[in-house]
């Protein structure tokens, strides 16, 4: 473990390299059975973070974590359980996906000014055993909402795993 390669910030100039068509659509937007998971990324002053990137990993609706390729091309591929969303000028990220059978989305956060990636989870509303503060809310139109606060009074709970 002592030889682990350290992380560095994603910096400001990643969009042309890491964003790709359909990156945030694990299933096509508006598809039957789909749900939108979205939210805003904030800094410690409550300001939006317009140069963050969020990735999610999840099971399908039946609880199976897919091991299929095709996320970078999307069209013609099945559900791969992985997506990427670069925040816009308002700090907004979004995914079109399905509600996972295993009750959380695994989340990685990157941003300019953030020197290493952060891990967290977003649980479905009502999930049993959910970590306090990491539960999405259901909006009136059915979308799932979860805001990420890098710092401040509402700071998101971030994780350390045993071998990281």
């Amino acid at each position: 473990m002592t030889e682990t390669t350290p992380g560095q910030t994603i910096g400001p100039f990643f969009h042309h390299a890491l964003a790709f068509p359909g990156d945030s659509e694990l299933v096509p937007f508006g598809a039957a059975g789909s749900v939108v998971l979205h939210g805003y990324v904030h800094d410690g002053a409550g300001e939006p973070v317009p140069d963050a990137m969020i990735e999610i990993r999840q099971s399908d609706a039946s609880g199976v974590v897919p091991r299929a390729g095709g996320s970078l091309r999307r069209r013609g591929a099945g559900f791969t359980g992985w997506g990427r969303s670069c925040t816009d000028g308002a700090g907004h990220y979004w995914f079109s996906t399905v509600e996972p059978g295993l009750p959380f989305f695994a989340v990685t956060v990157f941003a300019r000014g953030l020197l290493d990636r952060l891990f967290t989870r977003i649980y479905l509303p009502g999930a049993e055993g959910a970590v306090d503060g990491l539960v999405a809310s259901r909006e009136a139109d059915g979308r799932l909402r979860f805001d990420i606060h890098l710092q401040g009074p509402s700071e998101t709970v971030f994780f350390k795993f045993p071998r990281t």
Partner: protein
Amino acid sequence: MTSSQQEISEEIAKIQADSPRGAPLLDFAPYRSTTLRHPTKEPRHVDPEGAELLAPVFGNSDVAAVEADLTVQRGGEPIGERIRVQGRVLDGDGRPVRRQLVEIWQANAAGRYSHQGDQHPAPLDPNFTGVGRCLTDDDGWYSFTSIKPGPYPWRNHHNAWRPAHIHFSLFGTDFTQRLITQMYFPGDQLLALDPIAQSITDPAALARLIASYDHSRSEHEWLLGYRWDIVLTGSHATYLEPSDD
């Protein structure tokens, strides 16, 4: 007020006098943009479950072989010093990470990114996007052909310059092994001045971000070769908690 390089370097030295750490300090004031973007609470210790135990999978339907050569993506030859960067992606137990996605991005030879947000008044190269992808092979090897990126100024402090670097994005076999980092070049005098690199306060750990010049990888009358290996954190899949003895 804009700080001088000397003030930034003094801040870095003061922090580094404390216990050195192999991972970057998230709270690292010499890199000014960290101020409001680092968590202040200790991370919560959790065991990975479900989707966290499996990285996303990528394959030949995701990446075309030509994407590993950043010198042939447009109509003509990009300007600059042609290089090849090769190395292995290993997990924390030294096992190769096979058939996994590696993404890179970088500035051109003049130190300018092909990104709308980069307004540094250095020329864009119409033949260079600075973006590449490949899959590792069965032994964990990746290989990119590119142009050596130039250093470039940024606004962190007065007369601040980033050392030449290539951004790397990596996946392991577990979701928890995800890594985004930067590869630096040997002998770069700007590294010691750079608050992003120096946020890794253990010099031995920072050295792991510096590629080696490898003459055996250089090609006669064609390009210069560099070697850079990447070690991800450990996989949880086969891991047993160490016993106390």
